[in-house]
């Protein structure tokens, strides 16, 4: 029996007068790596913004652990367990690595697990321990991405949202980031929702995925189903 900690139903959303999502419904499967695939501008980031509450949808429901959270502000969703690694890292350049991790555990329930999470983060990313006193703004691209993931992990999320973690990284680092995601899946009971443009890489680690085009879900299925899909082969893998 598969459980769905996060469900979107019939989401319409947009910016100003421009609609970006049309009736998007999706269910995130517990304990797995869920992906949303699509090209630039397909509405992937908008979907994540709706889930985190940065953007309020025009219509539709966002259910987290069975509760409708459409009217819950972003910072409270974090407390409920929605953790997001934003696109482009968005670190605080003038805060040290350690301070960043401390703030990651800002919410009450995260503070309680601070020591445990810190250990987990330092095991996953030993380099962060070495650089704990360094300012976040001085980290390299790969290290920044690690810190961004670590910061979110510190908030003790139930579900981890990741917005294009591979963006702007050299190919070698991309592979490293994806390995980290797999490792996370193995070592924790986290549910991951990954948004990716890099369809090829995403399909290596996904358990289940959705394809967004022009703000609509056009396809969904397990990894194998997606890999075999003619649509994906043609439009995204160039086969």
């Amino acid at each position, binding site marked *: 029996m598969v459980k769905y900690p996060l469900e979107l139903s019939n989401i319409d959303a947009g910016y100003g007068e421009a609609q970006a999502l049309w009736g998007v419904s999706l269910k995130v499967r517990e304990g797995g790596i869920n992906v949303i695939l699509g090209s630039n501008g397909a509405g992937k980031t908008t979907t994540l913004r709706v889930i985190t509450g940065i953007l309020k949808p025009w219509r539709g429901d966002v259910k987290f652990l069975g509760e409708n959270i459409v009217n819950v502000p972003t*910072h409270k969703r974090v407390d409920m367990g929605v953790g997001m690694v*934003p696109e482009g890292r*968005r670190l605080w350049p003038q805060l040290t690595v350690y301070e960043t991790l*401390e703030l990651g555990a800002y919410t009450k329930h*995260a503070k309680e697990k601070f020591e445990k999470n810190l250990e987990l983060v330092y095991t996953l990313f030993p380099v962060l321990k070495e650089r704990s006193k360094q300012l976040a703004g001085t980290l390299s691209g790969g290290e920044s991405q690690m810190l961004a993931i670590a910061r*979110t992990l510190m908030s003790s999320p139930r579900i981890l949202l990741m917005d294009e973690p591979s963006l702007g990284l050299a190919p070698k680092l991309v592979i490293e980031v994806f390995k980290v995601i797999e490792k996370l899946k193995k070592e924790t009971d986290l549910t991951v929702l990954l948004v990716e443009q890099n369809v090829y890489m995403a399909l290596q680690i996904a358990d289940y995925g959705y394809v967004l085009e022009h703000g609509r879900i056009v396809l969904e299925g397990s990894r194998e189903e997606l890999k075999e899909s003619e649509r994906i082969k043609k439009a995204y893998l160039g086969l």
Partner: protein
Amino acid sequence: MGLSTVVISVVHGVLWGIILGAASTGLTLLWGVMKVVNVAHGEILLIGSYLIVILYAFLGLSPYIGLLASLALGLITGLAIYWGMLHKLVGKVEKVTLKIEMSTLLIMFALSVALSNSYYHFIGSEPKGLGLWHFGLKSSIDIGSVVVRTNSILAAIVAVIIVAALHLLLTRTTLGKSIRAVMQDAQAASLVGINPVRIKMLTTMIAIGVTTLSGFLIVLHETAIIPGTALIYTPLAFVIVVLGGLGNVLGSFIGGIIIGLIYGLSKAIIALTFNPLASAPLALSTAFIVLILVLLFKPEGLFGR
């Protein structure tokens, strides 16, 4: 004779600089963190000064109690300023654009007009002060050829305490770190569970609170204040904040001392070479020339990277 003029002038300049530094920290918070160009800074300083003076003159309350009262009033004023004026402009925005920044400048100017005219109307333009009240046994101390008022020494001590407390608050507490995080990226802050609106509100309260608290320093240093006193402190605070780098509390403090030093030195030099009567205004003008030079050549402040 010449040398002692310089020494006296520099000592007084530095003492004033310490006070200026502390009195400018509220501005660096508000401008650096919230992008609120608080051109009502001087008038807000005077809220504290006048409160202390009034409590002392009419109720006979010790200025130390007045000090606490001015902090309390500042926090409340900050709360009111945030919800009444700033929230609509900067509360929910992800990025403060130039236009929004200019709106904050204008609205704070409206506040300064309202406040300064309130002083004229309700308190009057006569100088007000703590009269003969002074800290310690003697009203002044001689150090060699330099005579320093004990009140100036008290002001400098309180100034250092204010700056130290604010610095510790920003670097050691979760609130302080949250404030810095919101300043650098508010959306990322909300993604770890920080409520940016709450932080902005608290930042305003702290900034205004520290400012009214510093009003104490102004009364002690100036001996007596008039509504026009604000007109000197607002622009000087901007000079200092720019010098120290936006949002940098310690930078502001050091910036204040530098300005005090420059003022003292140039005042002595002008007095010796030109005319003692012209020395005060011309020395003040150097502070603003320094401002323009720093803005042009090191806009991130002297201590920015």
